[in-house]
Protein backbone atom coordinates (compact mmCIF):
# COMPACT_ATOMS: atom_id res chain seq x y z
CA UNK A 1 0.00 0.00 0.00
CA UNK A 2 1.14 3.53 -0.74
CA UNK A 3 2.41 5.72 2.06
CA UNK A 4 -0.48 7.94 3.07
CA UNK A 5 0.08 9.73 6.40
CA UNK A 6 3.84 9.63 5.81
CA UNK A 7 3.75 10.33 2.08
CA UNK A 8 2.94 13.24 -0.19
CA UNK A 9 -0.30 14.63 1.18
CA UNK A 10 -0.78 17.56 -1.18
CA UNK A 11 -2.90 15.49 -3.53
CA UNK A 12 -5.41 14.88 -0.77
CA UNK A 13 -6.03 18.57 -0.43
CA UNK A 14 -8.30 19.50 -3.28
CA UNK A 15 -6.81 22.42 -5.18
CA UNK A 16 -3.71 22.11 -3.04
CA UNK A 17 -5.18 24.11 -0.19
CA UNK A 18 -8.58 22.83 0.73
CA UNK A 19 -8.15 20.52 3.65
CA UNK A 20 -11.80 20.34 4.49
CA UNK A 21 -12.85 19.22 1.04
CA UNK A 22 -11.03 16.08 2.00
CA UNK A 23 -12.26 15.96 5.53
CA UNK A 24 -15.93 16.73 5.20
CA UNK A 25 -17.21 18.99 2.50
CA UNK A 26 -16.93 22.40 1.02
CA UNK A 27 -15.65 24.79 3.68
CA UNK A 28 -12.07 25.96 3.48
CA UNK A 29 -9.97 25.93 6.62
CA UNK A 30 -6.28 26.69 6.45
CA UNK A 31 -3.99 24.05 5.11
CA UNK A 32 -2.24 22.21 7.90
CA UNK A 33 0.72 20.00 7.18
CA UNK A 34 3.02 18.51 9.73
CA UNK A 35 4.28 21.22 12.04
CA UNK A 36 7.97 20.90 11.35
CA UNK A 37 9.91 22.67 14.04
CA UNK A 38 12.71 22.93 11.56
CA UNK A 39 11.74 23.60 7.95
CA UNK A 40 13.87 23.64 4.82
CA UNK A 41 16.97 25.78 4.92
CA UNK A 42 17.62 27.55 1.61
CA UNK A 43 21.26 28.64 1.42
CA UNK A 44 23.29 30.27 -1.32
CA UNK A 45 27.05 30.41 -1.42
CA UNK A 46 28.27 33.34 -3.52
CA UNK A 47 32.00 33.08 -4.23
CA UNK A 48 34.23 35.74 -5.73
CA UNK A 49 36.34 34.11 -8.47
CA UNK A 50 38.13 37.24 -9.63
CA UNK A 51 41.85 36.98 -10.42
CA UNK A 52 42.98 37.89 -6.92
CA UNK A 53 41.21 34.83 -5.49
CA UNK A 54 43.42 32.47 -7.52
CA UNK A 55 45.48 31.45 -4.47
CA UNK A 56 42.31 30.02 -2.96
CA UNK A 57 40.84 28.25 -6.01
CA UNK A 58 41.78 24.69 -5.00
CA UNK A 59 41.03 25.14 -1.36
CA UNK A 60 37.65 26.64 -2.20
CA UNK A 61 36.71 23.63 -4.28
CA UNK A 62 37.77 21.14 -1.61
CA UNK A 63 36.12 23.13 1.17
CA UNK A 64 32.80 23.35 -0.68
CA UNK A 65 32.89 19.61 -1.44
CA UNK A 66 33.70 18.82 2.17
CA UNK A 67 30.88 21.06 3.33
CA UNK A 68 28.39 19.33 1.01
CA UNK A 69 29.54 15.87 2.13
CA UNK A 70 29.29 16.86 5.79
CA UNK A 71 25.74 18.11 5.41
CA UNK A 72 24.73 15.12 3.25
CA UNK A 73 25.97 12.72 5.93
CA UNK A 74 23.79 14.27 8.59
CA UNK A 75 20.60 12.20 8.90
CA UNK A 76 18.31 15.22 8.88
CA UNK A 77 20.23 18.08 7.27
CA UNK A 78 20.89 16.08 4.10
CA UNK A 79 17.20 16.21 3.34
CA UNK A 80 16.58 19.73 4.49
CA UNK A 81 19.36 21.98 3.31
CA UNK A 82 18.80 23.46 -0.15
CA UNK A 83 22.12 24.74 -1.43
CA UNK A 84 23.03 26.82 -4.46
CA UNK A 85 26.63 27.67 -5.36
CA UNK A 86 27.27 30.71 -7.55
CA UNK A 87 30.60 32.26 -8.56
CA UNK A 88 31.21 35.70 -9.98
CA UNK A 89 33.93 37.44 -11.96
CA UNK A 90 33.96 39.65 -15.04
CA UNK A 91 35.10 36.90 -17.42
CA UNK A 92 32.74 34.02 -16.78
CA UNK A 93 30.23 36.50 -15.31
CA UNK A 94 27.69 35.14 -12.87
CA UNK A 95 28.05 31.37 -13.01
CA UNK A 96 25.60 29.06 -11.28
CA UNK A 97 27.85 26.11 -10.44
CA UNK A 98 25.25 24.14 -8.49
CA UNK A 99 21.63 25.14 -9.01
CA UNK A 100 19.42 25.38 -5.94
CA UNK A 101 18.59 21.84 -4.91
CA UNK A 102 18.41 19.61 -1.90
CA UNK A 103 21.83 18.38 -0.87
CA UNK A 104 20.63 14.79 -1.19
CA UNK A 105 20.16 15.35 -4.94
CA UNK A 106 23.81 16.13 -5.55
CA UNK A 107 25.36 13.27 -3.62
CA UNK A 108 25.61 9.59 -4.48
CA UNK A 109 24.45 6.62 -2.41
CA UNK A 110 27.58 6.91 -0.27
CA UNK A 111 26.65 10.51 0.53
CA UNK A 112 29.59 11.89 -1.44
CA UNK A 113 29.15 14.63 -4.00
CA UNK A 114 28.51 13.23 -7.49
CA UNK A 115 31.48 13.72 -9.89
CA UNK A 116 29.45 15.84 -12.30
CA UNK A 117 28.80 18.36 -9.53
CA UNK A 118 32.35 18.18 -8.16
CA UNK A 119 33.67 18.99 -11.65
CA UNK A 120 31.54 22.12 -11.75
CA UNK A 121 33.49 23.38 -8.76
CA UNK A 122 36.76 23.68 -10.69
CA UNK A 123 37.14 27.38 -10.10
CA UNK A 124 39.35 29.35 -12.47
CA UNK A 125 39.88 32.76 -10.94
CA UNK A 126 40.12 35.51 -13.54
CA UNK A 127 38.92 39.05 -14.20
CA UNK A 128 37.31 41.66 -11.96
CA UNK A 129 34.70 41.63 -9.22
CA UNK A 130 31.10 42.41 -10.31
CA UNK A 131 29.70 42.28 -6.77
CA UNK A 132 26.53 44.23 -7.61
CA UNK A 133 25.48 41.97 -10.47
CA UNK A 134 26.30 38.91 -8.38
CA UNK A 135 24.22 40.10 -5.45
CA UNK A 136 21.28 40.92 -7.72
CA UNK A 137 21.34 37.38 -9.16
CA UNK A 138 21.80 35.78 -5.76
CA UNK A 139 18.98 37.70 -4.09
CA UNK A 140 16.60 36.94 -6.93
CA UNK A 141 17.53 33.23 -6.94
CA UNK A 142 17.23 32.77 -3.22
CA UNK A 143 13.91 34.60 -3.08
CA UNK A 144 12.54 32.43 -5.87
CA UNK A 145 13.78 29.30 -4.15
CA UNK A 146 12.16 30.39 -0.90
CA UNK A 147 8.86 30.97 -2.69
CA UNK A 148 9.08 27.60 -4.46
CA UNK A 149 9.63 25.83 -1.15
CA UNK A 150 6.80 27.78 0.43
CA UNK A 151 4.46 26.93 -2.45
CA UNK A 152 5.44 23.29 -2.08
CA UNK A 153 4.48 23.49 1.61
CA UNK A 154 8.03 22.70 2.71
CA UNK A 155 8.10 25.29 5.48
CA UNK A 156 11.25 27.12 4.41
CA UNK A 157 13.23 28.92 7.07
CA UNK A 158 14.73 32.34 6.52
CA UNK A 159 17.23 31.92 3.62
CA UNK A 160 20.95 32.38 4.25
CA UNK A 161 23.32 34.02 1.79
CA UNK A 162 27.07 33.58 2.28
CA UNK A 163 29.29 35.85 0.23
CA UNK A 164 33.06 35.42 0.02
CA UNK A 165 35.16 38.15 -1.52
CA UNK A 166 38.65 39.55 -1.28
CA UNK A 167 38.35 42.94 -2.89
CA UNK A 168 36.35 45.94 -3.86
CA UNK A 169 33.93 45.70 -6.78
CA UNK A 170 35.55 46.22 -10.15
CA UNK A 171 33.90 46.03 -13.60
CA UNK A 172 34.59 47.35 -17.08
CA UNK A 173 34.66 51.16 -17.10
CA UNK A 174 31.59 51.43 -19.33
CA UNK A 175 29.58 49.39 -16.81
CA UNK A 176 30.82 51.05 -13.64
CA UNK A 177 28.00 53.53 -13.29
CA UNK A 178 25.29 50.95 -13.90
CA UNK A 179 27.01 48.44 -11.62
CA UNK A 180 27.45 50.90 -8.75
CA UNK A 181 23.83 51.94 -9.02
CA UNK A 182 22.73 48.31 -8.87
CA UNK A 183 25.04 47.64 -5.94
CA UNK A 184 23.49 50.51 -3.99
CA UNK A 185 20.02 49.21 -4.80
CA UNK A 186 21.00 45.78 -3.56
CA UNK A 187 22.41 47.17 -0.32
CA UNK A 188 19.10 48.97 0.31
CA UNK A 189 17.08 45.90 -0.60
CA UNK A 190 19.13 43.62 1.64
CA UNK A 191 18.79 46.04 4.53
CA UNK A 192 15.01 45.99 4.15
CA UNK A 193 14.92 42.22 3.82
CA UNK A 194 17.13 41.72 6.88
CA UNK A 195 14.95 44.09 8.87
CA UNK A 196 11.90 42.03 7.87
CA UNK A 197 13.79 38.81 8.69
CA UNK A 198 13.48 37.68 5.07
CA UNK A 199 17.17 36.91 4.66
CA UNK A 200 20.37 36.36 6.60
CA UNK A 201 23.58 37.53 4.92
CA UNK A 202 27.00 36.45 6.12
CA UNK A 203 29.95 38.21 4.45
CA UNK A 204 33.44 36.78 4.51
CA UNK A 205 36.48 38.91 3.82
CA UNK A 206 39.22 36.76 2.37
CA UNK A 207 42.99 37.28 2.34
CA UNK A 208 45.07 40.45 2.51
CA UNK A 209 42.12 42.70 3.09
CA UNK A 210 41.94 41.31 6.62
CA UNK A 211 45.51 42.46 7.41
CA UNK A 212 46.51 45.78 8.90
CA UNK A 213 47.02 48.44 6.17
CA UNK A 214 50.58 49.51 5.47
CA UNK A 215 49.89 53.03 4.17
CA UNK A 216 47.06 55.62 4.06
CA UNK A 217 45.89 54.61 0.59
CA UNK A 218 45.67 50.99 1.60
CA UNK A 219 43.89 52.01 4.77
CA UNK A 220 41.25 53.91 2.80
CA UNK A 221 40.69 50.97 0.41
CA UNK A 222 40.35 48.48 3.24
CA UNK A 223 38.02 50.68 5.23
CA UNK A 224 35.84 51.04 2.15
CA UNK A 225 35.85 47.28 1.70
CA UNK A 226 35.02 46.63 5.36
CA UNK A 227 32.21 49.17 5.04
CA UNK A 228 30.87 47.50 1.90
CA UNK A 229 30.94 44.03 3.47
CA UNK A 230 29.06 45.32 6.50
CA UNK A 231 26.46 47.02 4.29
CA UNK A 232 26.01 43.80 2.33
CA UNK A 233 25.01 42.01 5.55
CA UNK A 234 22.20 44.53 6.01
CA UNK A 235 23.08 44.97 9.69
CA UNK A 236 24.14 48.19 11.44
CA UNK A 237 27.18 46.38 12.92
CA UNK A 238 29.85 43.89 11.92
CA UNK A 239 28.16 40.92 13.57
CA UNK A 240 27.89 39.05 10.28
CA UNK A 241 31.26 40.04 8.84
CA UNK A 242 33.78 37.25 9.20
CA UNK A 243 37.43 37.22 8.19
CA UNK A 244 39.49 34.45 6.67
CA UNK A 245 43.08 35.62 6.62
CA UNK A 246 44.57 32.40 5.26
CA UNK A 247 43.71 28.93 4.02
CA UNK A 248 43.23 27.49 7.51
CA UNK A 249 40.77 30.20 8.39
CA UNK A 250 38.93 29.74 5.11
CA UNK A 251 38.58 26.02 5.84
CA UNK A 252 37.33 26.89 9.29
CA UNK A 253 34.73 29.17 7.78
CA UNK A 254 33.33 26.26 5.77
CA UNK A 255 33.27 24.05 8.87
CA UNK A 256 31.37 26.79 10.66
CA UNK A 257 28.97 27.06 7.70
CA UNK A 258 28.35 23.29 7.68
CA UNK A 259 27.67 23.36 11.39
CA UNK A 260 25.32 26.34 11.06
CA UNK A 261 23.33 24.70 8.26
CA UNK A 262 23.15 21.34 10.05
CA UNK A 263 21.98 22.91 13.30
CA UNK A 264 19.39 25.00 11.43
CA UNK A 265 18.10 22.01 9.50
CA UNK A 266 17.91 19.78 12.54
CA UNK A 267 15.96 22.29 14.55
CA UNK A 268 18.50 23.31 17.19
CA UNK A 269 18.99 26.69 15.54
CA UNK A 270 16.32 28.82 13.89
CA UNK A 271 17.64 30.94 11.04
CA UNK A 272 15.24 33.76 11.83
CA UNK A 273 17.21 34.25 15.05
CA UNK A 274 20.53 34.66 13.23
CA UNK A 275 20.10 38.35 12.47
CA UNK A 276 20.12 38.99 16.21
CA UNK A 277 23.27 36.95 16.78
CA UNK A 278 26.88 38.04 16.70
CA UNK A 279 28.34 35.41 14.41
CA UNK A 280 31.69 37.14 14.26
CA UNK A 281 32.30 35.95 17.84
CA UNK A 282 31.18 32.37 17.22
CA UNK A 283 34.32 30.89 15.82
CA UNK A 284 37.12 32.63 17.61
CA UNK A 285 40.02 32.62 17.26
CA UNK A 286 39.74 31.51 13.65
CA UNK A 287 37.09 33.96 12.65
CA UNK A 288 36.92 37.46 13.92
Amino acid at each position, binding site marked *: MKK*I*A*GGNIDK*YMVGGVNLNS*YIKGDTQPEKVDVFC*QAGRVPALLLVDTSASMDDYADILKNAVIEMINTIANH*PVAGNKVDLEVVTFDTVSQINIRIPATEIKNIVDSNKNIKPEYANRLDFSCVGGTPTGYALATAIQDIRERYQDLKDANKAPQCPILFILSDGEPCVEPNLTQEHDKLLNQMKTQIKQMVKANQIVVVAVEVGEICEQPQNPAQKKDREDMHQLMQEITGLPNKHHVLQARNIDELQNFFKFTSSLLVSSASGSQDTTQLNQQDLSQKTKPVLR
Partner: protein
Amino acid sequence: MKEKNIFTTCLHKETGLMHQLKGKGCEDAVARHVSEETGVTAVAVSDGAGSCEHAAAGSAIVSETVVQLMAEKFELIWKLDEETAAEYLIRKLCAPIQHAAEKNMWTPESMYATLLCVAVHPDHRFLLFHIGDGAIIGYNPAENGKVLSKYQHLGAENETTFVNVPNTTYKFLRSTESYASFLLMTDGAEPYLTMPDRVAFRAILLQQISFVISERELEEQMADLLQYLRNHCGMSDDASFAVLTDYRRTDEILECMPSAMWNDLLECPKPVSKKKIKEYSLFLQLLHQCPEGVSYKQIGKYVLKDKHKIKNIRKAVGKMFKEELVEEVQGRVYLK
Protein backbone atom coordinates in the same frame (compact mmCIF):
# COMPACT_ATOMS: atom_id res chain seq x y z
CA MET B 1 -22.61 -9.09 17.34
CA LYS B 2 -20.67 -8.59 20.56
CA GLU B 3 -20.21 -5.06 21.79
CA LYS B 4 -16.53 -5.62 22.30
CA ASN B 5 -16.05 -5.60 18.55
CA ILE B 6 -17.25 -2.05 18.15
CA PHE B 7 -13.75 -0.65 18.52
CA THR B 8 -10.57 -1.41 16.69
CA THR B 9 -7.17 -0.44 18.05
CA CYS B 10 -3.65 -0.19 16.75
CA LEU B 11 -0.42 0.39 18.66
CA HIS B 12 3.06 1.24 17.45
CA LYS B 13 6.32 2.35 19.03
CA GLU B 14 9.83 2.97 17.73
CA THR B 15 13.23 3.62 19.20
CA GLY B 16 14.49 7.13 18.54
CA LEU B 17 17.71 7.93 16.74
CA MET B 18 19.30 9.38 19.86
CA HIS B 19 18.53 6.22 21.82
CA GLN B 20 19.95 4.07 19.04
CA LEU B 21 23.17 6.07 19.00
CA LYS B 22 23.46 5.68 22.77
CA GLY B 23 22.74 1.95 22.50
CA LYS B 24 19.52 2.32 24.48
CA GLY B 25 16.27 0.54 23.70
CA CYS B 26 12.86 2.12 23.33
CA GLU B 27 11.59 3.51 26.62
CA ASP B 28 8.07 4.12 25.33
CA ALA B 29 5.41 1.53 26.05
CA VAL B 30 1.99 0.93 24.51
CA ALA B 31 -0.94 -1.15 25.74
CA ARG B 32 -4.61 -1.92 25.15
CA HIS B 33 -7.31 -3.77 26.99
CA VAL B 34 -10.90 -4.72 26.20
CA SER B 35 -13.32 -5.49 29.00
CA GLU B 36 -15.03 -8.76 28.13
CA GLU B 37 -17.89 -7.77 30.34
CA THR B 38 -18.73 -4.29 29.10
CA GLY B 39 -16.90 -3.87 25.82
CA VAL B 40 -15.06 -0.81 27.18
CA THR B 41 -11.84 -0.51 25.24
CA ALA B 42 -8.78 1.32 26.55
CA VAL B 43 -5.50 2.24 24.90
CA ALA B 44 -2.44 3.88 26.46
CA VAL B 45 1.03 5.10 25.63
CA SER B 46 3.72 5.94 28.13
CA ASP B 47 7.15 7.52 27.82
CA GLY B 48 9.85 6.51 30.28
CA ALA B 49 11.99 9.44 31.42
CA GLY B 50 15.21 9.43 29.41
CA SER B 51 17.33 10.27 32.43
CA CYS B 52 15.98 7.39 34.52
CA GLU B 53 17.75 4.06 34.58
CA HIS B 54 14.63 1.88 34.68
CA ALA B 55 12.35 4.10 32.62
CA ALA B 56 11.39 1.31 30.21
CA ALA B 57 10.15 -0.85 33.09
CA GLY B 58 8.25 2.13 34.48
CA SER B 59 6.48 2.92 31.22
CA ALA B 60 5.56 -0.74 30.68
CA ILE B 61 4.00 -1.01 34.15
CA VAL B 62 2.15 2.28 33.80
CA SER B 63 0.65 1.50 30.40
CA GLU B 64 -0.38 -2.08 31.21
CA THR B 65 -1.88 -1.10 34.56
CA VAL B 66 -3.83 1.90 33.38
CA VAL B 67 -5.59 0.16 30.49
CA GLN B 68 -6.77 -2.60 32.83
CA LEU B 69 -8.04 -0.06 35.33
CA MET B 70 -9.74 2.26 32.88
CA ALA B 71 -11.47 -0.57 31.00
CA GLU B 72 -12.46 -2.79 33.90
CA LYS B 73 -13.28 -0.03 36.40
CA PHE B 74 -14.85 2.34 33.89
CA GLU B 75 -18.18 2.69 35.72
CA LEU B 76 -16.53 3.21 39.08
CA ILE B 77 -14.20 5.89 37.75
CA TRP B 78 -16.99 7.55 35.79
CA LYS B 79 -18.97 8.09 38.99
CA LEU B 80 -16.10 9.62 40.96
CA ASP B 81 -15.44 13.34 41.03
CA GLU B 82 -12.41 14.44 39.07
CA GLU B 83 -10.01 14.78 41.99
CA THR B 84 -11.01 11.48 43.59
CA ALA B 85 -10.80 9.66 40.25
CA ALA B 86 -7.31 11.00 39.59
CA GLU B 87 -6.14 10.18 43.12
CA TYR B 88 -7.55 6.67 42.77
CA LEU B 89 -5.83 6.09 39.44
CA ILE B 90 -2.48 7.49 40.59
CA ARG B 91 -2.57 5.40 43.76
CA LYS B 92 -3.36 2.28 41.74
CA LEU B 93 -0.55 3.09 39.31
CA CYS B 94 2.06 3.89 41.93
CA ALA B 95 1.50 0.61 43.78
CA PRO B 96 2.95 -1.71 41.09
CA ILE B 97 5.78 0.76 40.45
CA GLN B 98 6.65 0.68 44.14
CA HIS B 99 6.38 -3.10 44.16
CA ALA B 100 8.68 -3.50 41.14
CA ALA B 101 11.15 -1.05 42.62
CA GLU B 102 11.31 -2.92 45.94
CA LYS B 103 11.54 -6.30 44.23
CA ASN B 104 14.44 -5.20 42.03
CA MET B 105 16.17 -2.97 44.58
CA TRP B 106 15.48 0.08 42.44
CA THR B 107 14.15 3.44 43.48
CA PRO B 108 10.66 4.41 42.24
CA GLU B 109 12.26 7.60 40.92
CA SER B 110 14.36 5.51 38.52
CA MET B 111 11.10 4.38 36.87
CA TYR B 112 9.56 7.75 36.07
CA ALA B 113 7.12 7.58 33.15
CA THR B 114 4.40 9.70 31.58
CA LEU B 115 0.90 8.43 30.85
CA LEU B 116 -1.74 8.99 28.19
CA CYS B 117 -4.86 6.85 28.27
CA VAL B 118 -8.33 6.85 26.73
CA ALA B 119 -11.11 4.39 27.53
CA VAL B 120 -14.30 4.37 25.45
CA HIS B 121 -17.61 2.78 26.34
CA PRO B 122 -19.84 1.37 23.59
CA ASP B 123 -22.49 3.90 24.66
CA HIS B 124 -20.09 6.68 23.46
CA ARG B 125 -18.94 7.86 26.89
CA PHE B 126 -15.19 8.16 27.28
CA LEU B 127 -12.61 8.75 29.99
CA LEU B 128 -9.25 10.39 29.42
CA PHE B 129 -6.34 10.46 31.83
CA HIS B 130 -3.05 12.19 31.05
CA ILE B 131 0.10 12.87 33.07
CA GLY B 132 3.26 14.43 31.58
CA ASP B 133 4.02 15.35 28.00
CA GLY B 134 2.46 13.97 24.84
CA ALA B 135 -0.92 14.65 23.28
CA ILE B 136 -4.33 13.07 22.80
CA ILE B 137 -6.37 13.94 19.71
CA GLY B 138 -10.03 13.27 19.07
CA TYR B 139 -11.27 13.10 15.49
CA ASN B 140 -14.72 13.76 14.10
CA PRO B 141 -15.64 14.51 10.50
CA ALA B 142 -17.56 17.57 11.69
CA GLU B 143 -14.74 19.28 13.52
CA ASN B 144 -11.64 17.56 12.13
CA GLY B 145 -8.98 16.80 14.69
CA LYS B 146 -9.21 18.33 18.14
CA VAL B 147 -6.45 18.40 20.73
CA LEU B 148 -8.19 16.96 23.77
CA SER B 149 -5.13 17.02 25.99
CA LYS B 150 -1.59 18.30 25.57
CA TYR B 151 1.03 19.01 28.18
CA GLN B 152 1.83 22.69 28.45
CA HIS B 153 5.53 23.19 28.98
CA LEU B 154 6.08 26.04 31.37
CA GLY B 155 9.85 25.59 31.51
CA ALA B 156 12.29 23.84 29.20
CA GLU B 157 10.94 21.54 26.49
CA ASN B 158 12.42 18.50 28.20
CA GLU B 159 10.89 19.27 31.59
CA THR B 160 7.71 17.43 32.38
CA THR B 161 6.00 15.49 35.14
CA PHE B 162 5.52 11.78 35.68
CA VAL B 163 3.00 9.41 37.20
CA ASN B 164 4.84 8.84 40.48
CA VAL B 165 6.04 12.40 41.04
CA PRO B 166 4.44 13.52 44.34
CA ASN B 167 1.48 15.87 43.77
CA THR B 168 1.85 15.56 40.02
CA THR B 169 -0.35 17.64 37.74
CA TYR B 170 -2.74 15.68 35.53
CA LYS B 171 -5.65 15.98 33.13
CA PHE B 172 -8.75 13.94 33.78
CA LEU B 173 -11.63 14.21 31.35
CA ARG B 174 -15.01 12.53 31.41
CA SER B 175 -17.23 13.14 28.40
CA THR B 176 -20.26 11.97 26.49
CA GLU B 177 -19.09 13.69 23.32
CA SER B 178 -18.75 11.04 20.65
CA TYR B 179 -15.47 10.86 18.71
CA ALA B 180 -14.96 8.67 15.68
CA SER B 181 -11.38 7.95 16.75
CA PHE B 182 -8.67 8.88 19.21
CA LEU B 183 -4.95 9.21 18.56
CA LEU B 184 -2.53 9.14 21.47
CA MET B 185 1.13 10.04 21.06
CA THR B 186 4.13 10.44 23.32
CA ASP B 187 6.31 13.52 23.05
CA GLY B 188 8.46 12.09 20.23
CA ALA B 189 5.95 12.96 17.51
CA GLU B 190 3.76 15.38 19.46
CA PRO B 191 5.58 18.64 18.61
CA TYR B 192 5.32 17.86 14.91
CA LEU B 193 1.69 16.78 14.82
CA THR B 194 -0.07 19.09 17.25
CA MET B 195 -0.26 22.73 18.15
CA PRO B 196 -2.28 23.92 21.16
CA ASP B 197 -5.35 24.45 18.99
CA ARG B 198 -4.61 22.53 15.83
CA VAL B 199 -3.88 19.07 14.58
CA ALA B 200 -1.57 18.38 11.65
CA PHE B 201 -3.19 16.96 8.55
CA ARG B 202 -1.01 13.85 8.72
CA ALA B 203 -2.41 12.99 12.15
CA ILE B 204 -5.93 13.30 10.76
CA LEU B 205 -5.06 11.11 7.78
CA LEU B 206 -3.72 8.44 10.10
CA GLN B 207 -7.04 8.36 11.92
CA GLN B 208 -9.08 8.31 8.73
CA ILE B 209 -7.25 5.39 7.19
CA SER B 210 -7.68 3.47 10.43
CA PHE B 211 -11.27 2.92 9.26
CA VAL B 212 -10.17 1.26 6.04
CA ILE B 213 -7.04 -0.76 6.52
CA SER B 214 -6.01 -3.63 8.71
CA GLU B 215 -4.14 -3.24 11.97
CA ARG B 216 -0.94 -4.51 10.35
CA GLU B 217 -1.20 -2.01 7.53
CA LEU B 218 -2.04 0.79 9.91
CA GLU B 219 1.09 -0.01 11.89
CA GLU B 220 3.06 0.26 8.65
CA GLN B 221 1.47 3.64 7.98
CA MET B 222 2.43 4.75 11.50
CA ALA B 223 6.01 3.64 10.82
CA ASP B 224 5.96 5.60 7.54
CA LEU B 225 4.76 8.70 9.36
CA LEU B 226 7.52 8.41 11.95
CA GLN B 227 10.06 7.93 9.18
CA TYR B 228 8.75 11.13 7.56
CA LEU B 229 9.08 13.00 10.84
CA ARG B 230 12.64 11.76 11.28
CA ASN B 231 13.74 12.57 7.75
CA HIS B 232 11.94 15.85 7.23
CA CYS B 233 11.39 17.32 10.66
CA GLY B 234 14.37 16.22 12.69
CA MET B 235 12.50 13.97 15.13
CA SER B 236 15.06 11.97 17.11
CA ASP B 237 13.27 10.81 20.27
CA ASP B 238 11.42 7.54 20.91
CA ALA B 239 7.90 7.81 19.56
CA SER B 240 4.70 5.86 19.99
CA PHE B 241 1.13 5.96 18.78
CA ALA B 242 -2.13 4.37 19.85
CA VAL B 243 -5.28 4.65 17.75
CA LEU B 244 -8.74 3.69 18.94
CA THR B 245 -11.40 3.69 16.23
CA ASP B 246 -15.17 3.42 16.52
CA TYR B 247 -16.16 1.37 13.47
CA ARG B 248 -19.77 2.57 13.70
CA ARG B 249 -18.64 5.81 12.11
CA THR B 250 -17.01 4.01 9.15
CA ASP B 251 -19.44 5.01 6.40
CA GLU B 252 -19.55 8.59 7.68
CA ILE B 253 -15.75 8.87 7.58
CA LEU B 254 -15.18 7.06 4.32
CA GLU B 255 -17.74 9.06 2.39
CA CYS B 256 -15.73 12.18 3.20
CA MET B 257 -12.61 10.86 1.52
CA PRO B 258 -11.74 12.46 -1.79
CA SER B 259 -11.21 10.29 -4.82
CA ALA B 260 -7.42 10.86 -4.60
CA MET B 261 -7.43 8.97 -1.31
CA TRP B 262 -9.49 6.15 -2.74
CA ASN B 263 -7.22 6.02 -5.75
CA ASP B 264 -4.25 5.41 -3.46
CA LEU B 265 -6.02 2.92 -1.26
CA LEU B 266 -7.23 0.93 -4.24
CA GLU B 267 -4.22 1.64 -6.47
CA CYS B 268 -6.75 2.86 -9.01
CA PRO B 269 -5.67 5.42 -11.61
CA LYS B 270 -9.22 6.49 -12.50
CA PRO B 271 -11.44 8.62 -10.24
CA VAL B 272 -13.67 6.49 -8.02
CA SER B 273 -17.35 7.33 -8.41
CA LYS B 274 -19.51 8.45 -5.49
CA LYS B 275 -21.69 5.41 -5.90
CA LYS B 276 -18.66 3.15 -5.66
CA ILE B 277 -17.36 4.99 -2.59
CA LYS B 278 -20.74 4.51 -0.92
CA GLU B 279 -20.62 0.80 -1.71
CA TYR B 280 -17.09 0.40 -0.41
CA SER B 281 -17.95 2.30 2.76
CA LEU B 282 -20.95 0.11 3.51
CA PHE B 283 -18.95 -2.98 2.64
CA LEU B 284 -16.12 -2.09 5.04
CA GLN B 285 -18.56 -1.14 7.78
CA LEU B 286 -20.27 -4.51 7.41
CA LEU B 287 -16.92 -6.28 7.70
CA HIS B 288 -16.03 -4.25 10.80
CA GLN B 289 -19.33 -5.32 12.34
CA CYS B 290 -18.72 -8.97 11.53
CA PRO B 291 -15.23 -10.05 12.54
CA GLU B 292 -16.47 -13.61 12.00
CA GLY B 293 -16.71 -12.78 8.29
CA VAL B 294 -19.65 -12.33 5.94
CA SER B 295 -21.04 -14.41 3.12
CA TYR B 296 -21.49 -13.10 -0.42
CA LYS B 297 -25.22 -13.37 0.13
CA GLN B 298 -24.95 -10.98 3.06
CA ILE B 299 -22.85 -8.56 1.01
CA GLY B 300 -25.48 -8.64 -1.72
CA LYS B 301 -28.24 -8.06 0.79
CA TYR B 302 -26.72 -5.30 2.93
CA VAL B 303 -24.32 -3.54 0.59
CA LEU B 304 -25.21 -4.13 -3.05
CA LYS B 305 -28.96 -4.08 -2.95
CA ASP B 306 -29.31 -4.51 -6.69
CA LYS B 307 -26.94 -7.46 -7.05
CA HIS B 308 -27.70 -11.07 -6.19
CA LYS B 309 -25.35 -13.19 -8.27
CA ILE B 310 -22.08 -14.02 -6.52
CA LYS B 311 -20.20 -13.32 -9.75
CA ASN B 312 -21.59 -9.77 -9.86
CA ILE B 313 -20.96 -9.18 -6.17
CA ARG B 314 -17.34 -10.33 -6.54
CA LYS B 315 -16.91 -7.98 -9.46
CA ALA B 316 -18.43 -5.03 -7.57
CA VAL B 317 -16.00 -5.23 -4.67
CA GLY B 318 -13.17 -6.90 -6.59
CA LYS B 319 -10.79 -3.98 -6.11
CA MET B 320 -10.90 -4.46 -2.36
CA PHE B 321 -9.62 -8.01 -2.80
CA LYS B 322 -7.03 -7.01 -5.33
CA GLU B 323 -5.54 -4.42 -3.02
CA GLU B 324 -5.73 -6.86 -0.12
CA LEU B 325 -7.97 -4.70 2.00
CA VAL B 326 -10.21 -7.73 2.43
CA GLU B 327 -9.79 -11.47 1.94
CA GLU B 328 -11.92 -14.50 1.23
CA VAL B 329 -11.54 -17.71 3.21
CA GLN B 330 -13.80 -20.65 2.41
CA GLY B 331 -16.55 -18.55 0.92
CA ARG B 332 -16.57 -15.92 3.67
CA VAL B 333 -15.13 -12.45 3.39
CA TYR B 334 -13.03 -10.89 6.14
CA LEU B 335 -11.22 -7.65 6.78
CA LYS B 336 -7.57 -8.37 6.10
